[in-house]
């Protein structure tokens, strides 16, 4: 990396805004932070006196907790606001709520929101760093970065790998960030799912589209299964979970079509037996819990870099 390089983003709203050099910087920083979580005293004073607000409009246990653990391991003070407790329930707009939070002078707001573009809206209206913890079906950059970190650890190098992402591509912000991130780092990404779950122009983000799971995973180094949201069945996107599992679920047969050393990923939470065979989720190829561990390190890195660390 260029010795002059500095991470110069005030916000992290999506991987689309980060260069491959920025991504390198986050991953390197995360690697160096990962060790902190392995110590018996899991806390460093790096961000003592800093204030971070976790602003979560959508239920999310793992992402919220991961950000909170990350912030606390660096001694930042964290505050959590969830939808049910926030003033938006009383009719306040997102911008007004954000302005009120900003008036309390936090150093960073971490936003999870069901609407695409909400993180950008916030960043445009408050003078505080914003980290997007998932906005609608747009992006989930910290998840994308932790996935990149996990693959890099397992494979040594991202460039040249074949990544197969299977499932609901249309409604998955994780898929969007992963397609952008992996292709920026030189991997090839193939997506596959029912045609109803493949959105138009996904190729423009850097993915190839495959019509069959077996073809998608052929020669793959990484298979990532995405969660099928059961509520999506209201909109006629696929006939049944049963049929989905049969034609698009990641089974042993699917894994056998990939490279022998393929790793299996899932952003969680898993519908066991729907998108992923339970044995595979817990098997030796699975790096799913590693993803969770790396999530803390990546989020530590993001918070640290955003606050001007280098």
């Amino acid at each position, binding site marked *: 990396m260029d010795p002059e390089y500095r991470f110069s983003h005030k916000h992290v709203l999506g991987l*689309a805004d980060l260069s491959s050099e920025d991504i390198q910087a986050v991953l390197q920083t995360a690697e160096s932070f990962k060790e902190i979580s392995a110590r018996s005293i899991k806390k460093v004073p790096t961000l003592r006196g800093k204030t971070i607000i976790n602003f979560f409009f959508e239920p999310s246990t793992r992402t919220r907790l991961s950000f909170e653990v990350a912030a606390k391991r660096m001694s930042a003070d964290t505050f959590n606001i969830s939808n049910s407790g926030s003033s938006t329930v009383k009719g306040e*707009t*997102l*911008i007004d709520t954000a302005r009120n939070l900003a008036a309390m002078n936090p150093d960073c707001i971490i936003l999870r*929101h069901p*609407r*695409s*573009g*909400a993180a*950008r*809206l916030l960043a445009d209206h408050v003078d505080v760093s914003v980290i997007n913890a998932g*906005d*609608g*079906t*747009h*992006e989930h950059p910290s998840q994308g970065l932790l996935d990149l970190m996990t693959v890099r650890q397992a494979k040594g190098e991202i460039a040249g790998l074949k990544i197969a992402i299977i499932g609901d591509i*249309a409604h998955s*912000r994780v898929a*969007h960030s992963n397609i952008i991130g992996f292709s920026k780092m030189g991997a090839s990404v193939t997506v596959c799912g029912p045609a109803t779950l493949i*959105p*138009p*122009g*996904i*190729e*423009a*983000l850097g993915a190839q589209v495959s019509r069959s799971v077996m073809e998608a995973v052929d020669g793959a180094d990484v298979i990532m299964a995405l969660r099928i949201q059961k509520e999506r069945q209201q*909109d006629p996107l696929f006939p049944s979970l049963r049929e989905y599992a049969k034609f698009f679920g990641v089974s042993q047969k699917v894994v056998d079509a990939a490279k022998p050393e393929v790793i299996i990923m899932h952003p969680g939470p898993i519908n066991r037996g729907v998108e992923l065979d339970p044995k595979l989720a817990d098997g030796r190829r699975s790096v799913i819990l590693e993803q969770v561990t790396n999530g803390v390190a990546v989020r530590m890195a993001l918070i640290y870099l955003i606050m001007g660390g280098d």
Partner: protein
Amino acid sequence: MVGRIHLKNGRVIDPANGIDQILDVLIEDGKISAVVQPDTLPEQPDGIVYDLQGKWVVPGLIDMHVHLREPGQEYKETIATGTRAAAAGGFTAVACMPNTKPVNDNQTVTVFIIAKAAEAGFARVYPVGAISSGSTGEHLAEFGELRQAGAVGVTDDGLPVGNSQLMRRALEYAGDHDLLVISHAEELSLSQSGAMNDGPLATRLGLRGIPHVAEEIMVYRDLALAEFTGRPIHIAHVSTRESLALIRRAKKKGVAVTAETAPHYFTLTEKAVDGYNTLAKMNPPLRTEADVAAILEALRDGTLDAIATDHAPHGELDKDMEFDLAANGIIGLETAVPLTLRLVRENRLDARRMVELLSVNPARILGVVGGTLSVGVPADIAVIDPEKKFVFTAESILSKSRNSPFLGWEMQGKAVLTIMDGKITWRQEGDFSS
């Protein structure tokens, strides 16, 4: 003030009479009393004289598709502020859509609108009633009384008529009362709660898309119903290439169809929403370059009959929010002339065609006065300075709302004088002296 106004040396563009030349126009007692060669009128002892060298004198513009928001949402616009903005845009008449609160599905609301418009005095206002009571798509509104009260057409604009049988009956019954049926073409099960044009950009932004077929399927249905019933239909805010192909084909077959588009559909593409710009959020959504090219062609070849603005004022509260929750629509009355003149400067339209699209044809389609500078007609006139340059800013807007994706644009061409019924409703300050 209704007196004598002498408009000297302007370029009179009056397609209805086949006129495009430098002439003088005299207005007396609210009517056009003479259109003659310059320097042939005797000196007037009283009244106003304007020297309009370099400016166009055209029949007052007629916007057949606006939302005035009164009654019900006066914080967005009132009939007074909306018609004042219309006058400043060169419009002498507007047709207002029925999606007020309450919906204009009855004579009481229609009468109220007309009374408010008369009180304001900035423009003729032609209420358009609802097709269905409450625009719920269930029962026909009382077309006869709406017509008696002064409505000129019916539509559930903002919403389609989902029930094909109801639309068929609306076409049949509107004919009895000489009301124009205006179609808001949208197949709701396809558009769902989409927020922008369906395609790669929507995918990248993570926004639910509205596919172009959502419009085209309904255009096709309504053209088929118009042909079947033998009644005329007007297709509002056409935004896609295939809709235009369908309309072109229907016209060729002799179906009584007319159609409008709005300046934003020939000026912008979906790219304007990138970055979640809610000021460019509208329904139908901004489309692609291929659609824009098709609209330009259709404006030239007559497939499109009118340019209407779909002036849709919204307060900041309605736009400053998450993109998919933000209100649809933009204001348009004060930008229609410069945006259309751009096409004239780029030789995509000629001046005569511009006047047809913005005045002659809307008058004909709605069956209302205007669209001509014939001697003896009410003096509804717009004077346009095609050279005038200005920056379109929030401060300059006369509409009560500021929701325009054109804020900050450098514009060229503007209405500098608007006369309705012989009365000056708008004069650009400092632009010319009497």
